[in-house]
């Protein structure tokens, strides 16, 4: 007997994230390391836990192994509860009709019976590619107070970027009257964050009807939201203007990491009332040797620093040998930077080894990327903007 839940969260984690290039060659985007000790998915999962939402379905599709292993029982986020908890939901075969998730709405549609088990009043839809701290409970209250059928989190984006977003035009009451997907000439700069609250009975109905339409691309932004608007549903906008960063591209991922080096922090990760939790790998304290020079940087457990680290992020278990220099870069878990190597404006992925005397990236220009487990041979070099994979 499963106990009824007021709200169930569904986290869309199936996208390949192809704009992250070699970084998502071997893992789904939400599993990509961030900020030294986190992975992208730690943010929505911690937000759920901190918002009191203890039932989360994680929809996976693309290279789920690393993500599944990382989520495990959900214990790091206190989501290992006996009523609810975190569930990894891959697409499955149903005899005649099993198929991959065709779009965001289809992914939820295929898990209709998962959600129904909890008989929720509301469903929260999240994506796994943003860095932000958000109280979903406040958004849910907004949804309930406005007696809405759907509530869409929006934020103001610079006018010159409106063409990249789904733009919500609202009336004076904050109700959405029009939705424009990536408009050339936007009427407002309220962009959808891809965070939705739906009244479950309504959403179930729309998902079912959407599935019956062979023309539909089964997408929330393209199909479900416009259909609800056309048919006179109440859709409200929920304004969120705290830190929120899309990390869907190499540059934005690098930039979001660099944001953690600014003072004051644009996103406070020291906040004890809203902790961002991550899985623990039992690494020891960080060691900074007498030959080291570490400034303007974030360093975490298990790191051993003998070289120079400037304006960079070292993740769990990174080793920087004496004479090596790491500048304006993100070094992901377990990577080793050997003596004399110079890393500038680069992302070095998990367990990569940069052999002695190597140069990765340049002082200016695009971000260089070294993929997971890649060994860059001694004396080699990786140009700005280049991506190296095994």
């Amino acid at each position, binding site marked *: 007997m499963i106990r009824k839940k007021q709200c169930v969260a569904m986290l869309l984690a199936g996208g390949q994230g192809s704009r992250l290039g070699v970084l998502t060659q071997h893992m789904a985007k939400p599993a990509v390391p961030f900020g030294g000790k986190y992975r992208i998915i730690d943010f929505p999962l911690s937000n759920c836990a901190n918002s009191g939402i203890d039932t989360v379905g994680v929809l996976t599709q693309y290279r789920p192994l690393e993500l599944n292993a990382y989520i495990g029982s959900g*214990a790091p986020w206190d989501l290992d509860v006996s009523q609810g908890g975190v569930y990894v939901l891959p697409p499955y075969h149903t005899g005649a009709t099993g198929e991959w998730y065709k779009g965001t709405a289809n992914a939820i549609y295929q898990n209709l019976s998962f959600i129904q088990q909890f008989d929720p009043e509301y469903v929260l839809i999240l994506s796994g590619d943003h860095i932000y701290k958000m109280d979903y409970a406040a958004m849910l209250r907004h949804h309930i107070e406005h007696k809405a059928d759907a509530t869409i989190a929006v934020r103001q984006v610079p006018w010159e970027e409106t063409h990249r977003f789904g733009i919500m035009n609202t009336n004076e009451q904050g109700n959405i009257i029009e939705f424009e997907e990536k408009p050339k000439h936007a009427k407002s700069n309220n962009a959808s964050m891809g965070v939705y609250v739906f009244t479950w009975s309504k959403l179930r109905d729309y998902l079912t009807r959407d599935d019956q339409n062979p023309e539909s691309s089964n997408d929330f932004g393209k199909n479900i939201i416009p259909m609800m608007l056309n048919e006179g549903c109440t859709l409200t906008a929920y304004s969120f203007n705290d830190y929120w960063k899309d990390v869907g591209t190499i540059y934005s991922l690098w930039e979001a990491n660099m944001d953690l080096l600014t003072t004051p922090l644009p996103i406070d990760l020291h906040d004890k009332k809203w902790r961002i939790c991550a899985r623990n*790998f039992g690494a020891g*304290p960080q*060691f900074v040797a007498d030959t080291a020079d570490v*400034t303007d*940087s*974030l*360093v975490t457990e298990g790191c051993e620093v003998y070289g120079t680290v400037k304006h960079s992020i070292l993740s769990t278990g990174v080793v920087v040998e004496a004479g090596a220099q790491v500048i304006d870069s993100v070094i992901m878990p377990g990577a080793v930077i050997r003596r004399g190597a110079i890393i500038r404006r680069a992302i070095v992925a998990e367990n990569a080894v940069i052999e002695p005397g190597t140069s990765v990236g340049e002082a200016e220009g695009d971000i260089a990327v070294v993929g997971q487990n890649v060994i860059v041979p001694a004396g080699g070099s990786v140009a700005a903007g280049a991506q190296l994979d095994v």
Partner: protein
Amino acid sequence: MSDLMGLIYTGDNGERLGELTSLRAVAALPVLARYRVIDFVLSSLVSSGAKNVGIIMQKNYHSLIDHLGSGKEWDLHGKHQGLVILPPYQTPDNIGVYSGLMDAIRSNMVFLRRSRERYVVVTDSGMLYSANYDDMLAQHIRTGADITLMYSTDHNLLRSGSGHYIRVDEEGRVCELENQPMVPSFENTYMEAFLIRRELLIELADRAVSRAQYHFTRELLQHAIADHDLSVYGWKNDSPAWRLDTVQAYYDCSMALTKPEIRRQILRADRPVWTKMRDEMPTRYTADAKVKDSLLADGCIIEGTVENSIIFRGVRVMKGAVVKNAVIMQDGYIMPGAHVEGCILDKQVTVRDGSTLCAPASYPMVVAKGTTV
């Protein structure tokens, strides 16, 4: 599948550690930037496959219980077994205040009887080291010993007037045991940890207590060795080891662990040490940070100078502050221009602007928890 369980005795309240243990058991003493002493023995047991670990508590055990929780961090939160906390309580079988280890074991007999493992490691918690109990158990079985004592030749453990020292013959048999000699005759220090068949331990504890023998080492063990009643062997642990019985010993241990070659023998990749998580952000080093030869936990903000020190979670060293040869425990706050040298700052100590706290390395100073200097 290991047939080994653990029983950890945390009764010692370490009087000579002064304010460091006035509010906590030695087992709960913070150590090595992010651990507590008990994490090492607990993690070693878990690495050797133990799934059932009892912890006998006696005094000042609040912070220990808070630290251990359900045992989740050590994967000891099983449905049928895992971490079992054994606080003192008074019943006809348990007298609440134990006169010694045998007394404590006898008082917690129900736990031992209910357990299923064939072997049990019984260990004190006043020393810091890494142990491979698999090797110890293999030797125990090979020699057919009744009791196997863990010992070390590390000179750090020698003391005048305290500790137990053993003579071990070529076959590994323990032939003599000295109890608290002024000058130890043997260089082998008994590490206050032994391995025994669980049922034999039950039998011995019952017999000993009924004869008013409450102490394991100086009563039961010393007699058993002298009279050849039991076959007692020694197993040598090559890990570096520290006896945390004085402020100086704690300080020396901390300073030694800043050396990578020593630290790697305690924090081994193949035997990870687990501890309670705080989910802190990685440590931030600002443009003015100057850090050398130091160990730091997460959640710190370093704007000043830190040399040859151990910095626990959530510590802030502000601009112009200098921390040298020091141990700063959790949430310490070193304000601009302050100078801290040769000190052990317990948790939540604030050193105000421009204050100077200096002690020689041969006489480290302890600042009590929550103090503002």
